[in-house]
């Protein structure tokens, strides 16, 4: 029925399509100086929303700076920043309903923050202490909260993409006007799961937003070695998916695109693909040194597109923010994060019993036996196992 050949234009000479055949415009609303482009249509945003967004930006900047520092001091084992990508992440999350489910890749902590993840909760996860909702089982930055509809991050890339299709479809079946959104990098979009997830979403009409943060690199691999097509957006129409490309460093453009994408997904029970063109200003992770694969000049060029600064200038232009207030916000979060960090790093690790919990709904007899044997051993050599010492 929808096989496109029936209404194709006919030609009588061989002519191939190539990447230039797909012309994808990029949505921009906000200019570098914080003023809006002449013809730009603004997203729905009022002062309160702008403040909630900006507050999340500032928090995330401070968190990233502080925790990368903490990693360097050896206080946590690992860290990843989202510096430079705040507009992509926060602009999109801010367009959602709190009931919409977020499936993140790993660089989207600003999204869970926007939903209300507290500073304390961040620290508990980062320090894997006994209050970590994930019970200290995963590396730092693998946040998750059922209360906030933010599914716990899993390290294997792209696995969340077809899952999001399933989550979106379940909303449709439940008759809810909610959607799933999943985030992924342009690198992860090379995985088979990307194809599986988008194709199923299109065919099954799942209300899901596929949000690609195209930040230029997958660890050391630049986009030129990742794909040859016209970015990730060009693939959307190929699947029959509504698609848009936005300036990922432009908070208002991301907000506008995602607001409309969400409305479309809900009304039409259909997926939407958003490609946000941004840049990973920092290293891939705390284990990475980008000086081995990209130039300082390139980084400096992108510093000029700082999405947080651009949005701040807009707010100042609107009279919604002053430099003084801005400085106070940074100061407030520096203090708060440091204070919470100090508390969290002193809390003990989860009890040993959690080791065999959640493997199944209840521990199997074999797991119980293994725990019993382990405890016997640990009691004999407590000093060799500092995390469980004295806490069996």
């Amino acid at each position, binding site marked *: 029925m929808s096989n496109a050949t029936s209404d194709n234009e006919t030609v009588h000479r061989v002519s191939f399509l190539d990447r230039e055949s797909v012309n994808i415009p990029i949505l921009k609303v906000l200019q570098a100086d914080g003023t809006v482009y002449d013809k730009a249509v603004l997203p729905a945003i009022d002062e309160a929303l702008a403040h909630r967004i900006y507050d999340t930006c500032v928090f995330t900047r401070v968190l990233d700076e502080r925790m990368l520092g903490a990693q360097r001091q050896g206080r946590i*084992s*690992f860290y990843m920043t989202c510096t430079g990508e705040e507009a992509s992440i926060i602009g999109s999350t801010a367009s959602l309903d709190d009931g919409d489910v977020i499936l993140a890749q790993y660089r989207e902590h600003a999204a869970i923050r926007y939903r209300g993840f507290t500073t304390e909760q961040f620290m508990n996860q980062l320090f*894997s202490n006994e209050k970590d909702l994930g019970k*200290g*089982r*995963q*590396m730092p930055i*693998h946040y998750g909260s059922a209360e906030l509809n933010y599914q716990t991050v*899993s*390290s*294997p*890339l792209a696995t969340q993409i077809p899952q999001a299709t399933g989550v979106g479809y379940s909303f449709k079946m439940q008759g809810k006007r909610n959607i799933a959104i999943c985030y992924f990098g342009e*690198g*992860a979009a*090379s*995985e*088979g*799961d990307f194809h599986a997830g988008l194709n199923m979403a299109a065919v099954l009409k799942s209300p899901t937003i596929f949000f690609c943060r195209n930040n230029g690199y*997958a*660890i*050391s*691999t630049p986009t030129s*070695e*990742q*794909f040859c097509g016209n970015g990730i957006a060009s693939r959307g129409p190929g699947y029959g998916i509504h698609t848009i490309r936005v300036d990922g460093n432009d908070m208002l453009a991301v907000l506008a695109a995602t607001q409309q994408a969400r409305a479309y997904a809900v009304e039409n029970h259909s997926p939407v693909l958003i490609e946000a063109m941004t840049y990973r200003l920092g290293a891939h992770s705390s*284990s*990475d040194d980008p000086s*081995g*694969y990209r130039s300082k000049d390139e980084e400096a060029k992108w510093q000029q597109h700082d999405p947080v600064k651009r949005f701040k200038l807009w707010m100042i232009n609107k009279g919604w923010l002053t430099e003084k207030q801005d400085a106070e916000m940074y100061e407030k979060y520096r203090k708060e994060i440091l204070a919470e960090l100090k508390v969290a790093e002193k809390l003990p*690790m*989860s009890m*040993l019993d*959690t*080791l*065999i919990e959640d*493997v199944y709904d209840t521990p*199997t007899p*074999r*797991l119980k036996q*293994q725990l019993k044997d*382990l405890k016997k*051993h*640990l009691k*004999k*050599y407590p000093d*060799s*196992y*500092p*995390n*469980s010492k004295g806490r069996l």
Partner: protein
Amino acid sequence: MAEINMLQAINDALSIALESDENSILFGEDVGHFGGVFRATSGLQEKFGRDRCFNTPLTEQGIAGFANGLASNGMVAIAEIQFADYIFPAIDQIVNETAKFRYRSGNEFNVGGVTFRTPYGGGIAGGHYHSQSPEAYFTQTAGLKVVVPRNAYQAKGLLLASIRDPNPVIFFEPKRLYRANIGEVPDEDYEIELGKAEVVREGKDITLLAWGAQVEIVEHAADMAAKKGISCEIIDLRTLAPWDVDTLATSVKKTGRLLINHEAPLTGGFAGEIAATIQEECFLYLESPIARVCGLDTPYPLIHEKEYMPDALKTFEAIKATVNF
């Protein structure tokens, strides 16, 4: 002979492999100019060019299928899977295709030129997605060879043998030893025969069997046992598929006892297979049940990593219990 670490030994082996056979190609995520996230392939793109050493797009399924295609048409494919935990997206290509190419085509085609290198194992605070030891999934797959080196010297010789073996090989590299293990490694080209275990230390009371990073754990346990007057024979299996039953059975017939140590979970782990086989081969020689000191039947945890690990203390306790059975 130079003292180098395991990563340098691997780099050296890869360089020799590319040098000695111009049909060989090296690829994987970030392995090009960057030299891989662990730097095992540093400098190789500069030496051999972008056509023979390159970054692939981020798809393990693609990497494995591409390797199969290359090898099916006469090339030598050396592919890196960035972490063994991320080999699972490639499992269909490896288990259904790599392993069965020769068999299903009646040897019209084969992909013997494929080698997958991948860092495995824990002890690096990596949580369950940077610590797994998935060897047992592959030892159950006929058609694959599975190799695990324990030190820099072995890494070079076994990797060269794996690359040149006319069968597909999965080469698991113990990442916690990458920089920690330093030893004398000859500069020249040499191979260590696949399918042969090595008797690392002779002893008479009990045989301890391990592979990869766990060999040094059982060595440590054997030192502790020696202080109690227990003499341990230590065997490094080196190749898990096909594995060297003879060397192990000969040892167990001599000592009368066997302890197997691996990091992967106990249930369904390769130790079970070994125990069953040795029980058949050596039933009348056994003086105590075969002991297994393995990971727990949970995913690999982050904060309870030490508790989870089949470490030297647990091995020491099991040695005593087995000897005093």
